[in-house]
């Protein structure tokens, strides 16, 4: 009976996971001529916020690490985390707080490296909007993805109340409504709006003190079975980002422009400049931050904060949602 149940469960799992299940390579072969095929699921259409991955792919960093990386573009409603959790793709990206929530609900996802030391997510407002600070949001309505943990944080930190409506993933409503406040990527929407002659201002969410990482994640069982593949992927990705930010970004930009018609040269230059100047990816070296680096103390503090906000039902130990052992030695060592 128990065996029957187990078979039934496996069958259901296979059904739930769908047919596009990625075949997990049993052996990693970083040195041989055979490349290990793996897939990276993006969280949006290809854009400079994915520049390092494209740079690594085009410049052959992944191949040198023994990997044949397929980059899947995302889009609205793409929901990359459930895909990773179901084992359909081994690698994706997201915010560290979302990964904690996912892990707390039993999703087998694991943070393996930082993608950005700070999240470029911001609130977008018309330049003449009287809202100047987070505290001014009291009584307003914000278009954002409901369920994001920064919402209860802002409410509690500033003692304010505001309402939400679901994001429409476009700027038409924003242009039409001078009162509208919506979530954006500071590296993207402000440029597009200014180009259309719309004067805007932004409030960077991390300035409120709510400061998650953007991270690279993997499917936990995949990492357990293929630690070398994960290590190679992290190292080559970091190399790609290093090269993209401080070398010639043209290879990545050509690849992105070929895949995303909306990405003009000017738009990509703007995004890249923003990332460089605001140090989203590399962080502040004086704080010990570097590309890919994860600070266990900061992760722990964030998990505690989420628990205090009531978003996490229990204090979550780091082993449940992150594994820093796949970082290059100089990064993981530097953190202790």
């Amino acid at each position, binding site marked *: 009976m128990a065996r029957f149940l187990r078979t039934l469960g496996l069958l259901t799992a296979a059904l739930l996971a769908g047919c596009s299940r990625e075949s997990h390579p049993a052996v990693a072969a970083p040195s041989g001529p055979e490349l290990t095929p793996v897939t990276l699921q993006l969280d949006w259409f290809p854009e400079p916020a994915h520049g390092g991955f494209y740079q690594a792919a085009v410049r052959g960093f992944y191949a040198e690490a023994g990997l044949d990386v397929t980059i899947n573009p995302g889009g609205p409603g793409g929901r990359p985390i459930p895909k990773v959790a179901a084992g359909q793709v081994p690698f994706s990206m997201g915010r560290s707080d979302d990964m904690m929530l996912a892990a707390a609900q039993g999703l087998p996802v694991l943070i393996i490296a930082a993608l950005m030391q700070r999240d470029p997510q911001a609130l977008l407002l018309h330049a003449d909007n009287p809202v100047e600070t987070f505290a001014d949001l009291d009584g307003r309505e914000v278009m954002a993805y409901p369920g994001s943990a920064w919402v209860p944080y802002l409410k509690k930190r500033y003692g304010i109340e505001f*309402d939400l409506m679901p994001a429409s993933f476009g700027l038409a409503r924003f242009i039409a409504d001078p009162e509208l406040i919506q979530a954006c990527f500071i590296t993207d929407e402000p440029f597009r709006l200014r180009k259309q002659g719309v004067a805007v201002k932004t409030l960077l969410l991390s300035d409120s003190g709510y400061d998650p990482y953007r991270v690279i994640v993997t499917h936990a069982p995949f990492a357990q079975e293929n630690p070398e593949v994960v290590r190679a992927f992290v190292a080559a990705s970091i190399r790609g980002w290093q090269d993209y930010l401080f070398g010639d970004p043209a290879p990545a930009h050509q690849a992105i422009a070929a895949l995303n018609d909306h990405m003009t040269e000017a738009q990509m230059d703007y995004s890249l400049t923003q990332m460089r100047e605001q140090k989203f990816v590399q962080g502040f070296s004086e704080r010990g931050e570097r590309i890919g680096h994860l600070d266990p103390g900061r992760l722990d503090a964030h998990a505690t904060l989420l628990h205090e906000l009531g978003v996490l039902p229990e204090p979550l130990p780091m082993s449940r949602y992150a594994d820093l052992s796949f970082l290059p030695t100089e990064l993981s060592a530097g953190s202790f």
Partner: protein
Amino acid sequence: MKGSTTRYLAPVLSAAVFIGGWYAIRAGLPTEKQFMLPWPHDVAQAFAENWQTLLQASLNIALGAAIGLCSATMVAVLMAILMSLSGFIRASLYPHLMALQMMPVVALAPILVIWVGPGLPSVSIITFIICFFPIVVNTTQGLISTDRKLVELFALYRASRWQQITRLRLPAAMPYFFTGLRISGILASIGAIVGDFSAGSSANDGAGLGFLVIIYGAQFKMAELFATVISGCLIGFVFVLIVHRVSWFCLHQWHDSYERSDS
């Protein structure tokens, strides 16, 4: 007596088998897949912990669905009367009604939000659009397929056009109308939830089940998602029940689709 025992016992039994199967499947899931399917008692607990949120969201959906369905019914019947008057009017309007039905709600939602604002106005209009078509098509069909003999009878008695519509065509179209209404009754709550999903708002406690789906989805709360889905089913069930009840009230005495209950 035997009939009523079967009637009440059978669904209870099938529900027990279903829940038993659910437990069996969950018990057989390997560890890394367990997040996909919560235990049934986890879902029950999600209900217990979030019942106020779920109830408020359900009521909001029910309100949007009711406004959408009622206004769709009224406009659809008027439109059907108009279309029954001439083949020319039918030919001119029908393709546009089809287009209305084909309109993808997800594409429409952002436009509606700009026009009328998020929340109840958008949700009601989306429900209206989804519910409108089945009623207008079926009612028009009913209005133009009235028994020819009865039409001649009215002609013999020199009934006016208005008398023909009110005393003959509308009552004769009632079974057709209710066929459409039953379809729309099923669609109403689905439409409201989809509308709320893409054009809802949490302002004035107006968030509905679609909004909750986004929130729970973002937080990966599977048990709460299941509870939300079940709440949606319950609302749909209530709507279908009401429509069937009204349909029974209007038709059971004379229409063949209902068994003779009085002799």
